[in-house]
């Protein structure tokens, strides 16, 4: 691909340049270390080293009851912890063959979709920051995210690790007057997303930096089992909320944005569109919110029958799967967390080959990886 092929013209002695884009680097989104072999500005080879944030949640899960593990799932994808709680609790309910009240389902959908918007806001803000638009888009994204975090602070009492969804329902009903706040937020957020389109999406420099960078072909993405917005940007229409609807997603009308050629710009654009769709879902869910008691009915200690269950939910970063094997006791025998960012990151070395240094940052930013759920 590189027009001047350095390999043939080897009469002059050139030496590769080994750089360690170390665990703490302003743009590796957490503790990821990339060992890069460079030829001038071009990357010849890249080997990622992960595991700096490995807290062995799967081992800890083996001597905690099912309810006690919920705060741990907050810390997996710490930017979208509602969706992690949802994934885990749905897997356990699947194991327990437990059904939950309608109101609880609607509340879970509202809360999960709001958290998806908050997570995408961070993804877009940091992506723009990586491309050099220093701090301005990031501040706008955080200003919007602050409104969602205030709503969550009102609903469940915490700003980042919500621990709101329980096995069999939710921790407590929505406080009074929260629907009003969410409706105002939806109106406010719609105007802001259009603002991002003006500020970033069609900006000439942004296009020059993100278009045709990090092209992820459809078959490579599927082969690396990349999921979520990164896969949809490559043209594969796969969204668990549509293919295998859980909760009450089949009752809502929303479409799945799909990119064209799977470059960094498409991944960004898919996330912007997904925010608009999530707003539509929240609006419809709020509209038809049934009455009833969403809190937990069953006893506190759940003892599922011996068996296993694998449940996948559509996380903002991809498909988050929980594979739980129970042996009848109150403690899970084995709990495997299939993290979406783990496979999304595996494709990074393939994308970075023959890219420039500035592109590394752009591609890894567009993949929106998060070390919390990679290292577990």
């Amino acid at each position, binding site marked *: 691909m590189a027009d001047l092929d350095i390999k043939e013209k080897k009469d002059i002695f050139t030496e590769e340049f080994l750089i360690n884009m170390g665990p703490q680097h302003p743009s590796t989104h957490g503790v990821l270390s990339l060992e890069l072999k460079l030829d001038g500005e071009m990357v010849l080879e890249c080997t990622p080293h992960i595991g700096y944030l490995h807290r062995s949640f799967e081992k800890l899960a083996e001597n905690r009851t099912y309810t006690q593990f*919920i705060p741990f799932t907050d810390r997996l994808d710490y930017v979208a912890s509602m969706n992690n709680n949802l994934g885990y609790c749905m897997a356990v309910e699947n194991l327990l063959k437990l059904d939950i009240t309608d109101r609880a389902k609607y509340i879970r959908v509202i809360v999960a979709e709001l958290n998806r918007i908050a997570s995408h806001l961070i993804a877009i803000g940091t992506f723009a920051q990586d491309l050099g638009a220093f701090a301005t888009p990031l501040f706008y994204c955080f200003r919007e995210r602050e409104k969602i975090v205030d709503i969550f602070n009102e*609903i469940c*009492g915490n700003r980042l*690790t919500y621990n709101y969804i329980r096995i069999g329902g939710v921790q407590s009903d929505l406080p009074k007057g929260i629907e009003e706040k969410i409706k105002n937020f939806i109106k406010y957020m719609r105007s802001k997303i259009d603002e991002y389109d003006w*500020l*970033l999406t069609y*900006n000439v420099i942004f296009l020059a930096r993100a278009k045709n960078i990090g092209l992820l072909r459809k078959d490579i993405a599927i082969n690396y089992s990349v999921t979520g917005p990164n896969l949809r940007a490559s043209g594969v229409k796969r969204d668990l909320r549509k293919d295998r609807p859980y909760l009450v997603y089949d009752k809502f009308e929303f479409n799945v944005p799909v990119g064209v050629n799977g470059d960094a710009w498409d991944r960004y654009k898919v996330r912007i569109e997904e925010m608009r769709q999530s707003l539509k879902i929240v609006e419809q869910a709020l509209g038809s919110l049934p009455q009833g008691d969403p809190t937990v009915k069953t006893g506190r200690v759940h003892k599922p029958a011996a068996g296993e269950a694998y449940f996948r939910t559509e996380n903002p970063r991809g498909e988050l799967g929980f594979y739980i094997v129970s042996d009848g006791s109150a403690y899970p025998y084995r709990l495997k967390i299939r993290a979406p960012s783990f496979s999304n990151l595996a494709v990074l070395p393939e994308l970075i080959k023959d890219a420039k240094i500035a592109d590394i940052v752009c591609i890894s930013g567009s993949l929106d990886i998060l070390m919390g759920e990679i290292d577990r």
Partner: protein
Amino acid sequence: MAASLMLRSMNNIITGILSLIKGLIITFNNNFTSATTLQYPDEKKAMTERFRGLIDLYPEKCVACYQCVKACPTACLAMTHKQTDEKKKITNTFTYNIELCCFCGLCQQVCPTGAIYMNKIYEITTYERNKLYINLLNPEKYDEWPHTSPK
């Protein structure tokens, strides 16, 4: 052919400059919106009524049923109880280790008599570690940290 090429590149340049100007308009408008940040030590964000801060206790309500100690995922509560004269169990010692606490609110939810609850303190900073091992029974355990009252 050259003409269409010229036209297309002119068109690109125009749309390019237009997109740049649109970006500038957005940032300029934001100049006049009010600041969204607080001047932290002077203005503090009031926490909501359900905010989960540090763990607090009404000692008289506690019946030493150990539910909260069992429910805690990180085992940061430890309690011993004693028998009073008319056969009622009350707590003897009740220690709370802030280092391990993950502020999940499971203990508050599981307590039958509502003895244990989470107050609104979120500015938890100390210079020594032993300050983080709290004895829940003595009343002025949290005087050191500022109390941010709910809205």
